[in-house]
């Protein structure tokens, strides 16, 4: 299970995580993945880079909790979540969620729910580097 939930500094691979998820069942017919990446623009302001901080321990716990609730509330077979912390350049990946199910509809719903839930409940904070300095982001869509 531990490889399915991670907070890490380095980059991740969608192929690797999907392979990890697929190991859990031969009944998987659909994998939906969400990858969040660093954009060059946020509310009209040029962004030069991002930095993420998390509450070690609690953030991992909240991600495990999202996985557990997704498995309970959606007809999915497995879910995995990786969130990076530390410095992220524009264009780099930040977060990855993989949802696996027999039929695609369930994986789409669970994956979309999970990223919304992650933003709502996981103690992770982003600071954006702009021309005028670093700013902690306090409102996320």
């Amino acid at each position, binding site marked *: 299970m531990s490889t399915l939930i991670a907070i890490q500094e380095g980059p991740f691979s969608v192929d690797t995580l999907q392979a990890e998820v697929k190991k859990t069942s031969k009944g998987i017919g659909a994998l939906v993945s969400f990858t969040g990446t660093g954009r060059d623009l946020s509310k009209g302001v040029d962004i030069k880079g991002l930095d993420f901080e998390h*509450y070690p321990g*609690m953030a991992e716990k909240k991600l495990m909790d999202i996985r557990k609730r997704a498995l309970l509330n959606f007809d999915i077979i497995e879910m995995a979540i990786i969130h990076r912390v530390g410095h992220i350049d524009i264009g780099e990946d930040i*977060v990855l969620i993989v949802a696996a199910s027999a039929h695609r509809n369930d994986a789409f719903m669970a994956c979309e729910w999970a990223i919304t839930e*992650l933003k709502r409940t996981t*103690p*992770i*904070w982003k600071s954006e580097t702009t021309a005028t300095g670093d700013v902690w982001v306090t409102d*996320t869509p």
Partner: protein
Amino acid sequence: MIEVRFFAMLKKLSGTGARQYEVSEPITVLELKQLLKEDMPALSEVLDSRSVLVSVNEEFARDDELVADGDVVGLLPPFSGG
């Protein structure tokens, strides 16, 4: 001892990542906030704004929850992960 941990902009506002408080008996989260505001006036505004969540031992806690010796309290500004 209650350990209070500060994150993101609160770490910057408070000027520290963590602070310890000696309590003779359990106090509520609200009482702890009062104590923090007296100790660090820079935090007054955000602690009153309700945008800051509080965790006790890594679980979200409401204002009326009790905090006791040995507990770890987190002061959590609005999340922006993902």
